[in-house]
């Protein structure tokens, strides 16, 4: 047994590290094929366990468990959506100094043949610095969440002898999530979160522009072009659907008109017959029953003028 009380945590973390390395080797084409299961689940499992190990390490040493939230925490953001380079680094202050100097230099006007590219480059660097600033604000908010969670745990008193490390961990997770939820629903968090996302998108958009400029110069198609084609194609498809629907409507109306005409024809004939032979009105009315809905009976009214026929008898 080791003399150092925390050795077992180090051993655990080393074991997790070995696991992560074994998992990572799967993606190394030079590496020996392993029998490890689903790379995805293994990655998440070891990331989670690594976080648990970090928590124990910090906690056993009486330090605040760090990096449990947001970009720096378990569950790394998707590729291309991570923290800005330089943000959160140990030499953060140097980055800030550099950013200040860079911002001053970036305010100089651009000249010459490449002035547009220069301006784009300046805008890109400014966007990067801006994103780093918003990222820092976000991290500061999360730091506050940590501190409140730890304060809440302290208020609950020290763990009892009967408690396992795991149960203290679970208790801490509950407090940390409560603290996080409270912060995450605040107006300040909403503003900082949106600023972070907007700054990140602004930076990505400027990066894309530069990539597109290079692609265009190399004679490659760009996403903007593909998007334009897609937008036009979708508009045409929508228009086509609309026209097909109109066509179906017109066909239905034509059929209805044809049916009405078909129904009106025998009724007309019946009207003529009634007008000519008033004595047969009862018989002529029989087929008119089917045409009732087409108001065939109404035109039959003019049959009244048949009265003059009586006069004819005279």
């Amino acid at each position, binding site marked *: *047994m080791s003399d150092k*009380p925390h*050795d*077992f945590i180090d051993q*655990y973390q080393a074991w997790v590290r070995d696991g992560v390395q074994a998992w990572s080797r799967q993606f190394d084409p030079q590496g020996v094929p392993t*029998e490890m*299961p*689903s790379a*995805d*689940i*293994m990655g*998440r*499992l070891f*990331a*989670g*366990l690594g*976080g*648990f190990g970090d*928590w*124990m390490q910090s*906690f*056993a*040493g*009486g330090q*605040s468990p760090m990096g*449990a*939230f947001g970009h720096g*925490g*378990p569950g790394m953001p*998707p*590729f291309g959506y991570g923290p800005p380079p330089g943000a959160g680094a140990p030499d953060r202050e140097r980055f800030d100094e550099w950013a200040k100097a860079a911002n001053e230099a970036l305010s100089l006007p651009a000249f010459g043949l490449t002035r547009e590219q220069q301006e784009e480059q300046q805008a890109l660097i400014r966007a990067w610095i801006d994103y780093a600033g918003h990222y820092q604000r976000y991290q500061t908010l999360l730091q506050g969440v940590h*501190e409140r969670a*730890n304060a809440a745990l302290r208020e609950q008193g*020290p*763990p009892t002898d009967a408690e*396992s*490390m*795991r149960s*203290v*961990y*679970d208790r801490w*997770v509950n407090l940390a*999530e409560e603290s*996080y*939820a409270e912060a*995450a*629903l605040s107006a300040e*968090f*909403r*503003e900082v979160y*949106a600023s972070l*996302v*907007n700054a990140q*998108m602004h930076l*990505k*958009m400027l990066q894309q522009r530069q990539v597109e400029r290079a692609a265009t110069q190399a004679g490659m198609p760009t996403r903007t072009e*593909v998007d334009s084609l897609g937008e036009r194609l*979708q*508009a045409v498809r*929508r228009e086509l659907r609309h026209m097909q629907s109109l066509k179906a409507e017109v066909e239905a109306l034509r059929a209805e008109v044809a049916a009405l005409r078909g129904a009106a024809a025998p009724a007309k004939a019946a009207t003529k017959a009634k007008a000519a032979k008033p004595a047969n009105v009862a018989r002529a009315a029989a087929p008119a029953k089917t045409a009732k809905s087409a108001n065939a009976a109404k035109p039959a009214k003019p049959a009244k003028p048949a009265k003059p026929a009586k006069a004819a008898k005279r």
Partner: protein
Amino acid sequence: MNLPPFPFDPQRAQAEMEAFRRKLEAGMEALKRVGPIELGTTPREAVYTEDKLTLWHFKGDTPPTSKTPLLICYALVNTPWMVDLQEDRSMVRNLLAQGEDVYLVDWGYPDGADRWLTLEDYIDGYLDRCVDAIRARHGIDALNLLGICQGGVFSLCYAALHPEKVRNLVTMVTPVDFHTPDNMLSHWARNVDIDLFVDTVGNVPADVMNFAYLTLKPIRLNQQKYVGLVDILDNPKELENFLRMEKWIFDSPDQAGEAFREFARDFFQKNQLMSGEARIGGRPIDLKNITQPVLNIYAEQDHLVPPAASAPLGDLIGSDDYTALAFQGGHIGIYVSGRAQKLVPPAIHTWLADR
């Protein structure tokens, strides 16, 4: 701010961690033995396809007794297999057992070609043609529509636009009021420049969506969950259940850019279902047009769609026949928990059968 050192007994703590490590080591063998994970186990056939969309018709052990088919409209977020996760956790299977004739809209996985699909294309296009396909198959004027989460919003819009095609409407964990104070996602989205976001990313990557969902409860979902996994590594059935859920969570489609833009802007940011200003393809969505019977089921512990976000529906629609059903559980538990299997499908079936 540091904590006072944890007053643990080193030997006891070491024994605890050693036991944990051994469990994990043994569990690795169990993980290697797990085969491919499949979702959607109920027999089914594709009865209509268009672009990436598939309309599935499920086959039960016995013919359906219900004369009106039931169409399930799932959200664009995640795949629809939450309703048919596995044999003993399947809302679809249980609805079939009740005698329902069940169809499901599977939106598929959008790619760059689908970037410009709008909510009109989804609701008044794809969904409407699915409804028409079912109406034609059954020779009926109207079907029963069951919308889930965002699919519930789609179903509300659809029923408002085409009330004559919906006989009964069921909404499950469906947000109506997006601005309740406990709605974290909506809170975060409120000040985001959605136009800049969509113009930049085009289709919204599934990983970005999932990352946002994970950060709703970051430590629980990114860390504690996997520490807990170690506890069940020696239980093959529970391990498979865990991995199946894990697959469902992360095997998710990207979001078509334009539809995402409209949904985030009009519903999350402007809360237009509540204000009555919602429009789909320029046509106003008047929820008062929904005069057919409506069953609204929500989950009381739902952290994605809080109950307060669903509850106002009854006051917004024109129907005199409105039923609200609160379920003790979360956004996912309402489909996969043991209680849900016993309670939810029979409740839906009974309600439909009474109408």
